[in-house]
């Protein structure tokens, strides 16, 4: 009983934020899950009521509420559209952490968040093993996308079309880097994020080339530590805090002016979720978190700052150039209001004709671990995105988040139509002089 009291006390800190919801239902218009299911417990308003009823003891089912909270992409569409400005994502993240702490972690989650993610070396070893054996159980699905699918029926993979793990993660390939800045450049910490480190290594290499080309000095740590969002969104605040602490240790006292990441989710996590959760930390720790958060920039935003504004070409239906379109990652567009920077990078490459898709900021349905737990629903949402991409007739779709890239590859690969999926910075990197591009390879 004492523990239940503790749950209620912790939840009560959300009361003021919950009270701001006037239940107008405007979140229904933008929620990608509600569009599929039409159920109140899938949309922000309904979930907020569940947390409110749990907190006021009208409902006594923490497991049930947790389960429903986890059925959410955390895309932030609702928060952005909310007339009364309810910080929905903040509430959901905190509620997941509070209920997660009360209920404890499942053995699987404990293994992942408290052991695997905390031991980067162990992760590297597992990656080598997985990369060496992945060919045994998978076969090629789409040569342009480079996707694979399971050879036989597989319980976890199901009918996903996925990209292979690299044999060697980026940080191993490159080792620790610590170079001084050139004239006019800054010293930047580079945080690739797990997916660029392990799957999209080219994105990391191109990013480093671009930063060097601008004269920036790079610091890349010798180990890749997860930003913590998978742990936190699964309700593991303790695991999250340990990961945050390790990243702080990595980048502090390295003299960096900026921390640059090519992952929208990592950027959004460090810039908004870290300070949000730092409220629970002692004051000196809060300051450390805030300092690094303040230095953190999304790479498209950072690179676009140095670009001159190009006159916008009218979008024409017919063009000889390959057509490129852009998908807005939720964590960039909705969380950080960054939408023009990546488009500017794309327009800076004259080899392509840019064409907007319909509703480019509609969530792709990935949602990190949401995709693992609710694949069918994730796929339903993702197929809409795939249709919008195909409708543009684009040869290439760019985005700015490797998690979205995983989902776009899977969804496009299923359509059987070959559309290349890239990070916006890769398109911009194609404009670099050959020499700068080759430096790394």
């Amino acid at each position, binding site marked *: 009983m004492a523990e239940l009291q503790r749950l209620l006390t912790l939840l009560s800190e959300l009361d003021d934020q919950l009270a*701001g919801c006037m239940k107008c*239902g405007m979140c229904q218009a933008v929620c990608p899950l509600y569009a599929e299911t039409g*159920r109140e*417990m899938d949309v922000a308003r309904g979930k907020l*009521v569940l947390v409110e009823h749990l907190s006021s003891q*009208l409902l006594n089912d923490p497991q049930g509420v947790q389960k*429903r909270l986890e059925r959410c992409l955390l895309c932030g569409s609702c928060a952005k559209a909310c007339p009364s*400005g309810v910080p929905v994502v903040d509430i959901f993240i905190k509620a997941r952490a509070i209920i997660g702490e009360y209920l404890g972690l499942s053995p699987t989650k404990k293994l992942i968040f408290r052991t695997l993610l905390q031991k980067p070396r162990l992760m590297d070893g597992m990656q080598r093993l997985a990369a060496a054996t992945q060919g045994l159980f998978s076969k090629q699905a789409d040569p342009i996308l480079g996707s694979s699918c399971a050879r036989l029926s597989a319980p976890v993979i199901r009918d996903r079309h996925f990209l292979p793990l690299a044999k060697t993660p980026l940080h191993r390939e490159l080792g620790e880097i610590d170079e001084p800045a050139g004239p006019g450049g800054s010293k930047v910490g580079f945080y690739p994020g797990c997916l660029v480190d392990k799957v999209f290594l080219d994105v990391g290499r191109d990013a480093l080339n671009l930063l060097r080309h601008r004269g920036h000095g790079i610091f890349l740590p010798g180990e890749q530590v997860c930003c913590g969002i998978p742990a936190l969104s699964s309700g593991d605040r303790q695991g999250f805090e340990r990961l945050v602490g390790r990243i702080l240790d990595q980048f502090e006292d390295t003299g960096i002016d900026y921390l640059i990441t090519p992952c929208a989710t990592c950027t959004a996590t460090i810039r908004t979720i870290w300070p949000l959760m730092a409220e629970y930390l002692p004051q000196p720790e809060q300051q450390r978190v805030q300092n690094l958060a303040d230095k953190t920039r999304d790479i498209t935003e950072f690179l676009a700052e140095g670009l001159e504004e190009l006159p916008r070409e009218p979008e024409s239906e017919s063009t000889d150039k390959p057509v490129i379109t852009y998908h807005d990652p939720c964590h960039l567009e909705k969380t950080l209001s960054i939408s023009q920077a990546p488009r500017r990078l794309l327009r800076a490459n004259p080899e392509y004709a840019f064409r907007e898709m319909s509703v480019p900021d509609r969530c792709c349905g990935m949602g990190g671990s949401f995709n693992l737990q609710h694949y069918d629903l994730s796929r339903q949402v993702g197929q809409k995105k795939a249709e919008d991409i195909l409708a543009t007739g684009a040869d290439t779709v760019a985005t700015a988040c490797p998690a979205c890239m995983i989902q776009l590859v899977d969804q496009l690969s299923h359509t059987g139509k070959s559309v290349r999926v890239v990070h916006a910075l890769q398109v911009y990197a194609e404009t670099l002089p050959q020499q700068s591009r080759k430096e790394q390879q």
Partner: protein
Amino acid sequence: MVNKSLIKKFERLLGRENVICEETDRHAYSFDSAVLDPVVPELVLQPGNRDALADVVRLCNENELPLTVRGAGTNLSGGTLPAREKGVVVLINSLNRILEINTEDLYARVEPGVITSQFAQAAAENGLFYPPDPGSQTVSTLGGNVAENAGGLRGLKYGVTKDYVLGVDFYDVDGELIRAGARTVKCATGLNLAQLMVGSEGTLGVFSEIVLKLVPPPAAQQAMLAVFDSVDRASETVSAIIANKILPCTLEFLDNFTIRAVESFRGAGLPTEAGALLLIEVDGHPAQVEEDARRIREICQEMGVTELKVSQSAEEKESVWQARRDALPALARLKPTTVLEDATVPRSKLPAMIRAINDIASRHNLTIGTFGHAGDGNLHPTILTDKRDTEEFKRVERAIEEIFDAALALDGTLSGEHGIGVAKSKFMEKEITRGTILYSQRLKQAVDPKGILNPGKIMGA
């Protein structure tokens, strides 16, 4: 509790995934947009087609389960709250097909779960216009709009939902299909049951199909933002415009408190000392629009407008509209709880009504911002409070009752467009006679003897 064998029956009928009985899920259907205590239903059903809906109604009646149909659940008077005992919520959002848009005969047939703005969009794609635009139009359903007789910003010139309903097909309590109205503009066959269904709040039948009238869209529009130093001036301007035989499609009003809230929210440079602000839009043939807009500008000048902004382009129109669109969000952010009322008075009584609202606010020491539809006298006094402050909330309840009294004293009505639901049921007798309430109740008793169709709503205390 609903017994297990009945739940099994519903599962066989609708498929297991469409029968929601877990307690936690049911809590997500215990509320709508009204500020009222939650009521948790015993069962939530989501029929996938019209036949299944008929079976649901019949089974509920056979088993005496009171059913409440729910569209988007954006009702502002508690009309979608389930019954306190054995309440069943029936979701209609799977019935969301637009069945026909007829461009020759200017009507459309829709299922009740179609979302209002999506329907208006589809009509526009066919070169036609569906004018009713309630504030919740991006999520609200047409079934809900008809059941509540939803209004919107275009009431003065274009009317409200009831003016577009040609026919309603609905199920009676036995699940029998009743067809009311026609696809023609004229129809004098039998009782006008289709209009009886409009605004009946789900108490007389369950809609399966709605026939809606469409109109040709106006070719041109022009919007203006007019600033006045007093509410009286603004109101006299409204009267003068209409006295000059001009019918703007939109004539919206913001009071000083709302102007200040919007300005601190958006910072678009609104004059915070202004007494009132009018958003005026005229539409129609380009020549007519030009002429009307010119006349309105003159009238505004004659009435002593302090500032007048006329939109010359689509972008400018957006910026003119922004202040009105910001009204509710700006007010809602000031306090946790937003109580949105819709008392309505004859247009000429607007200044008196606003004075009454301001008196009530100061008498009860409450914060009330008022905006709304000046063209049709439908105001939205918006009480900003915190329902957790029980002492203040008691004052809010007293203030609401006094707002009703003030509206009625000025020959107005309790509700312009939000409906009666459970929130205003007990006040009905203030406006209509006991005889009228009894007549309605006897009518309901005759078609719904077991009282299963959304009991407790609209029929008076």
